């Protein structure tokens, strides 16, 4: 039997309901504390494993940081490129999915489903092994570096996800918009590009930003196919140092870098979602 006259009691965060301000602060504090706890645990574990060589570990990590950062930059490059290409293509694919021409709609739907349901790593293998490594265009040879192939490999699932986001956003626009446009004798193409899409952009942004965080995290998969990026740099560092006690700290360090990059994006996404909340 719970509290009588519950409605008269002061509000307490953590009752499980959305006390928005309290809830947000909770999570920031929580994340910070979790981070600190994680760091302490990692150091304690490493310290226990080496019995006193703790400064050496921190110092080693610090020494290799420029090298590791250099690798991490490639993660950002690959994910940014994949997002750029994937968004552009996915936009077109999403619009093709609502086309009134069956010959356009069906293959677009099929391509979207295919790319959404294939594992990202398999698509990456496809692109790495089967794409040519250089193009002979107009007589000159243009080399395609392997990070570019990896970026294209990630652009494929991004294309499918963006296509779904676009399609969902377009469908959430009230039918009244379409009807008014038709009444004002806009062609379908004009309606889509001048009326519907501008309204969709706001709705799509949080999901799109979420996708960017996902792609940045997925860019680590490129390490499995031999592309030089952050995790590859970490493995090369471990190969050079050959010290068992470095394993835990180095991988934890890499995780921290990604957390530091992706968590702000996630927070910004939540913030934008709340600010631009559109009644559906």
């Amino acid at each position: 039997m719970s509290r009588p006259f519950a409605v008269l009691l002061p509000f307490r965060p953590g009752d499980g309901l959305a006390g928005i301000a309290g809830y947000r602060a909770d999570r920031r504090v929580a994340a910070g504390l979790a981070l600190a706890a994680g760091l302490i645990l990692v150091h304690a574990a490493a310290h226990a494993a080496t019995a006193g060589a703790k400064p050496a570990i921190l110092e080693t990590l610090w020494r290799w940081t420029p090298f590791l950062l250099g690798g991490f930059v490639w993660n950002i490059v690959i994910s940014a490129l994949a997002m750029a290409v994937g968004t552009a293509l996915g936009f077109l694919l999403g619009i093709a999915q609502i086309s009134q021409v069956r010959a356009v709609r069906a293959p677009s739907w099929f391509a979207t489903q295919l790319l959404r349901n294939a594992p990202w790593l398999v698509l990456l293998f496809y692109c790495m092994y089967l794409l040519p490594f250089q193009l002979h265009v107009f007589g000159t040879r243009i080399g395609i570096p392997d990070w570019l192939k990896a970026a294209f490999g990630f652009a494929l699932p991004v294309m499918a996800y963006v296509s779904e986001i676009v399609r969902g956003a377009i469908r959430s626009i009230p039918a009244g918009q379409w009807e008014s446009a038709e009444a004002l004798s806009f062609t379908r193409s004009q309606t889509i590009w001048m009326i519907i899409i501008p309204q969709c952009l706001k709705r799509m942004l949080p999901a799109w930003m979420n996708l960017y965080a996902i792609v940045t995290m997925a860019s680590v998969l490129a390490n499995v196919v031999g592309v030089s990026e952050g995790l590859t740099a970490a493995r090369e560092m471990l190969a050079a140092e050959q010290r068992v006690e470095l394993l835990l700290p180095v991988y934890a360090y890499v995780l921290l870098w990604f957390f530091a990059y992706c968590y702000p994006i996630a927070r910004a996404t939540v913030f934008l979602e709340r600010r631009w909340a559109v009644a559906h």
Partner: protein
Amino acid sequence: MVAEWFRQLKESANVNLTIFYDRFDGLTYLNGLATTVKLSAACLVLSVVFGIGGAWLQRSGWAPLRWLVNGYVAFFRNTPPLAQLYFFYFGVGSIMPLIPDGAGGTHRLFDNFQWAVISMSLFAGAFNVEIFRAGIEAVPKATTDAAEALGYSRFKAYIHIVLPLAFRISLPALNNNLVTMVKGTTIAYAIGVPELLTASATIWNASTNIPEMMNVLMITFLALVGILVVVMHRIERALHIPGYNR
């Protein structure tokens, strides 16, 4: 007989599908498929457990417990699953205690399959916590008040009333997460778990039939995911709450 046809396919069309005519390759691929299915099933169960448990702890009155769960969710949702896997298997795995195995030697506490399950379940579980939280919040307050009025304790109301409803509400999002997880089992390749991608790589390294094996792999995954999506849709429709529009 089937094997002969595929052998001839290699000669005539240069399409080398060794899994159909080479016993070792065929068995390797089938084992890979079995391991992928086992991995997915284990991760499904464990991640749902983590999700339900995390969602329950998130509503606790004791603040540090809430901070812990929120920190877990924030950390696992914003770091790459492959890096998490490396961290657990090579990092944490190297400081795990040695336990004796049956044959007189010792080995570390969790082997690579188990670490893959743990790591991927923690990752999917973090998403599940959020999904269950949304589902629990979507249960009308009136319902929980009614439960309170009927004398249910908080815990009993959670188990008998809130959770079943929340589960049905969050089923579509859970299914999405499940599909993502099944696709994500491919990262176990990095730690040598003999699942589908590892099996395919082993086969194409020995028989140099990369395009054929990649296509077979893609088709296998599309089939797996397709079956899963169809089954999930059936379940969703069966468990759909009447009048609750999504």
